[in-house]
């Protein structure tokens, strides 16, 4: 037991030590001395107290609730062990929501990541005029609350008098208006596009920040070797930003899994259950559909969160391994 416990820690320590040695010798000034201990923990406390209260405790509480049959109002009494998890494993709606959420997040990430990278590359060119103006345009949807974006697009996409159908019909792209949000095959896709539109600016900014760290002389060297813009992108930019890119993609994926506001305001999970997603499932189970099943919803949250965290960790492990032994 103890051997198992210490090995991973040991490995981590030695890696950290290696890194430290590479940078500087023993960082004498980084050691805490005397009454500075008091200040260190005092400085930590405002963040840690709020963090424990508003992030860590809610996570723990969710796990605790998941073992109870509970409506969120009465005292927490009916302990049912893993009962909620057994029920949820056989709940077809949960698994449909699970599938929809994954589809949403994967397609959403696959669209927004390359597009926002492309936009960031363009909008960081030195020669481009009006950079501030164009950046503000692509960033603009982000300042719209998600719920408002959903309401606006439910108007714009309306089959009877929505602006988007009006444009498509008058340009003869389609012969009759499309019911974007009422069509079983189109509803989830429409949500994905609205979501990409809304969040795009955030990832554009992330990429722009990453691009700023590509050393200018690398480009100059590549230019001397006769590389064109495309080759510079493939052989200079992408390899340099790769470690940051991995983090950005993970964040993009995990954030896309939280899709909620758009579903509430645009489709309410419909048509049928085609846009039911896990956060919406949790919300309806816990706070909308009577009788409230808060314990059950918590179990759904735990199951979903653990699955995602494991997926991220496994991917992270493979990414790191391929970084450490190239080829």
């Amino acid at each position, binding site marked *: 037991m103890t051997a198992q416990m210490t090995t991973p820690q040991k490995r981590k320590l030695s890696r950290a030590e290696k890194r430290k040695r590479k940078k500087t010798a023993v960082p004498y000034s980084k050691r805490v001395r005397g009454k500075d201990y008091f200040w260190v923990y005092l400085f930590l406390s405002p963040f840690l107290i709020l*963090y424990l209260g508003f992030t860590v*405790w809610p996570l723990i*509480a969710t796990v605790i609730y998941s073992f109870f049959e509970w409506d969120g109002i009465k005292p927490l009494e009916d302990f049912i062990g893993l009962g909620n998890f057994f029920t949820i494993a056989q709940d077809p709606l949960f698994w449909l929501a699970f599938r929809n959420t994954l589809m949403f997040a994967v397609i959403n990430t696959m669209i927004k990541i390359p597009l926002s990278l492309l936009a960031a590359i363009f909008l960081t060119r030195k020669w481009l005029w009006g950079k*501030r103006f164009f950046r503000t345009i692509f960033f603009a*949807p982000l*300042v719209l609350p998600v719920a408002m*974006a959903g309401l606006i697009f439910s108007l714009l996409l309306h089959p009877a008098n929505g602006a988007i159908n009006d444009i498509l019909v008058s340009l003869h792209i389609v012969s009759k208006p499309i019911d974007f949000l009422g069509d079983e095959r189109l509803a989830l896709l429409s949500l994905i596009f609205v979501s990409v539109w809304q969040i795009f600016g955030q990832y554009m900014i992330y990429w722009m920040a990453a691009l700023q760290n590509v050393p200018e002389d690398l480009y100059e060297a590549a230019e001397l070797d006769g590389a064109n813009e495309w080759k510079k992108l493939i052989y200079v930019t992408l390899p340099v930003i790769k470690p940051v890119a991995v983090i950005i993609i993970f964040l993009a994926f995990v954030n896309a899994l*939280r899709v909620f506001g758009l579903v509430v305001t645009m489709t309410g999970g419909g048509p049928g259950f085609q846009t039911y997603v896990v956060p919406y499932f949790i919300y309806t189970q816990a706070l909308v559909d009577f009788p409230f099943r808060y314990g059950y919803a918590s179990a*759904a949250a735990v199951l979903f969160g653990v699955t995602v*965290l494991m997926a991220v960790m496994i991917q992270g492990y493979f990414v790191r391994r391929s970084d450490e032994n190239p080829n």
Partner: protein
Amino acid sequence: MNTFLRSRYNRYNLIAGGLLLIIGFVWIYPFLWVLFASFKTSSEMFSAGAKLLPETWDFGNFYRAWTKANFNIYFFNTLLYAASATAIELVKSSMCGYVLGRYRFPGRTLILGLITATLFIPIAAIILPQFQLVRSLGLLNTRPGVILALSGGAGALYVLLFTGFFQPLPDELFESARLDGANFVQTFRLMLPLAKPIIATVVIFQFMRTWNEFNIPLVFTLGRPELRNMAVGMYAFRGEYSVDWTGFAAGTTMSIIPVLIVFFIFQGYFVRGLSGAVKQ
């Protein structure tokens, strides 16, 4: 060929600029639609389809939203929530990030690990425990309660940004401060201004997030409509005023223009702050 077109970059700009103008127009179209809808009468809004410019300019929507729908109160609330939550966020994340980046002490690895891990958990059902916490503090349906909830949940990313900034600062810097006789707090106050790009990033991110926050103000002010912010107030437009869509559009316009101006002015800092952070 004239001199203007002889430059490679001028030619690039004509092509790229034209392309960007078209894409940008499509991209911004929903915004423009809302912006102009806030000047339309409601019958025109529904009959106009894709047309942007209103036939007659109607300023009544803004007046109605501002006074009848209490947007003046919502505006004040939004400003108060966003400003206080941003200030709290800045203080606590800079203090925590400074200590984590500057010192090695027991528990440091644990804290950093915990913060990083929670970044990657899709937190879906977190609001009810938060609700219970605020209620047990007796702050439900109060402005301090909303501010506390707004500044409590976020911040993990900001702490990591500050940690990443302070960690690689040269030891000599701190050593010379110590030799000058600066104590712990004085050293912190000397170092903090160096982190200007990070401060700008945190201010913009957190201000935008709280300015637009919807879920927390909705749940934490259910009993007191006069404590709503604009996002929640706009949503309520649907119910209480039998879907006043043009009023809704006017409200949306009023709430997003200030944030867009903030971004337009500070975007340079923003990108620099983030890029300094991702270097680590």
